């Protein structure tokens, strides 16, 4: 074993508790991940020692706090290998990153008749902002179909790409199926057609190494809370050439150069897109999460999670009546399933009473549910702090639940 699971679990205080009289087994990591003490302490330390509004003060605390905040911008740029830290915009999360992009990119570059390509496996937060834009600007949303295995139909994608396409926005990894999409290929094909690409990295950033320069994506969005960082902080990476041309998103303090009623000029990148006081404590927590992930090593995380996934898939296959949704060749440690004809809500409710936290329902991906003609799934999503023992216990619980609902 590349790392010491006991030691890792000790870093996550929340895992050590009973729920409904049973030891908690947390398998809802695709919804949000738990936070290690290193992250919790880093955020608390801001309030205990350096709290002060950033970028504004001449005083000591403000300077220290600003420095800590900007340090994380560099660290984040480095983590995703951005060319410059100016290309890292802090947001509230993936949702806000997509809204920023749809608004600013949309208002700046899109015109009536243009097309945006999404996929059938997008999270609602990478669908609805584009639909709103479509309504405002008279652009059309095109959708890449998903195959029975839960993979993107790349033939279908190529067919959609045309001279009217002005943006491709696709998820790196499906939050429901765990499918890892061929984003390199999508980006290369799009660029050949002269079309920029946004990747929704909410489910990827803590599982796979993301190198935005190697990917050559134009935009990359992700959330802190899914990568062991505090909630309320996220990132939009964008290539400078786009960001520079794009209109601001929200107006307010920080994002301006000079304000007057005869005309206001805007600040430089990245501040142009960061109106108002940011969640600097959360950002500093994000920095601690990046340190934490780097410290254990994403390659080791990947290897551990994959082994756990393979084990879980094998063990869970023995549960009577279980049906897996999605069988992608490339995937993360997410298992979506159904138990016979049982409603996911029933399965999830009973599992909860046995101490297991799993997600049930449509997972904010209703078009994908429609694609598979189901109303929802039960989803187990594993993180590196989960164990084989937890998998064994889950399988026992599932057998019991299957019997009760059978």
């Amino acid at each position, binding site marked *: 074993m590349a790392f010491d699971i006991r030691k890792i679990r000790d870093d996550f205080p929340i895992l050590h508790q009973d729920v*409904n*009289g049973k030891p908690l087994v947390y398998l809802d990591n695709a919804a949000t991940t738990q936070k290690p003490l290193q992250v919790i302490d880093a955020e608390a330390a801001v309030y205990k020692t350096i709290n002060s509004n950033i970028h504004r003060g001449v005083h000591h605390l403000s300077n220290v706090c600003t420095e800590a905040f900007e340090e994380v911008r560099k660290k984040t740029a480095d983590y995703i290998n951005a060319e410059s830290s100016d290309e890292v915009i802090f947001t509230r999360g993936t949702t806000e990153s997509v809204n920023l992009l749809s608004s600013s990119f949309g208002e700046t570059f899109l015109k009536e008749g243009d097309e945006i390509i999404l996929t059938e496996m997008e999270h609602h937060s990478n669908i609805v902002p584009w639909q709103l834009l479509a309504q405002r600007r008279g652009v059309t949303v095109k959708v890449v179909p998903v195959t029975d295995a839960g993979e993107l139909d790349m033939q279908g994608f190529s067919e959609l790409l045309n001279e009217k396409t002005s943006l491709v926005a696709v998820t790196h990894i499906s939050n429901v199926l765990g499918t890892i999409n061929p984003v390199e290929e999508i980006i290369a094909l799009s660029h050949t057609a002269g079309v920029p690409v946004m990747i929704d990295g909410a489910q990827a950033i803590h599982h796979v190494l993301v190198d935005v320069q190697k990917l050559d994506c134009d935009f990359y969005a992700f959330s802190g809370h899914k990568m062991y960082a505090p909630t309320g902080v996220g990132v939009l990476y964008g290539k400078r050439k786009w960001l520079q041309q794009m209109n601001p998103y929200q107006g307010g303090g920080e994002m301006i150069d000079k304000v007057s009623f005869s005309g206001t000029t805007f600040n430089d990148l990245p501040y142009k897109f960061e109106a108002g006081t940011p969640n600097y404590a959360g950002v500093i927590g994000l920095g601690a999460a990046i340190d934490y992930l780097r410290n254990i090593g994403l390659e080791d995380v990947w290897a551990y999670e994959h082994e756990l996934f393979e084990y879980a898939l094998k063990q869970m296959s023995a549960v009577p009546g279980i049906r897996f949704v999605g069988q992608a060749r490339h995937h993360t440690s997410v298992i979506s399933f159904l138990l016979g004809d*049982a*409603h*996911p*809500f*029933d399965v999830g*409710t*009973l599992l909860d*009473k*046995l101490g297991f936290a799993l997600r*049930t*329902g449509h997972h904010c991906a209703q078009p994908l549910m429609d694609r598979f003609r189901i*109303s*929802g799934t039960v989803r187990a999503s594993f993180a590196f702090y989960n164990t084989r023992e937890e998998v064994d216990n889950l399988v026992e619980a599932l057998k*019991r639940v299957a019997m*009760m*609902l059978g």
Partner: protein
Amino acid sequence: MTIKEKQQEVIEEFSAFDDWMDKYSLLIELGNELDSFDEANRQQQNLIEGCQSKVWLHAEMNDGKIEIQGDSDAIIVKGIVALLLRVLSGHTPDEILDSDLFFIDEIGLKEHLSPTRSNGLVAMVRQIKAYALAFKARQNK
């Protein structure tokens, strides 16, 4: 039996179990035993669509009493529907409107009451009371 007495009966049945799984087994059993729902009534206006599950409630007035039919696509929710119908169906509009439903709390199903769960009891109770109010208005005409 009054609505109050019926609730006390339900509470007694559930008090036999202290394990959650046993309580839910009973709910599942009640769900399975619920009278089948008349397909003709499976209509949009009888549907309460929750975030995760669907509930159908249909009410009719017979001899001054409201008879309610219900169904759900989730068996645990259907069990809860069965309990509600057992307590409220067959009563007059006034009895239903005046009822105070305390059994839900007592048997520990309070989490299903949370207002954000639109598949929850709150929406169902609201719907049944709305039926009662409508029938009462019609009666008084």
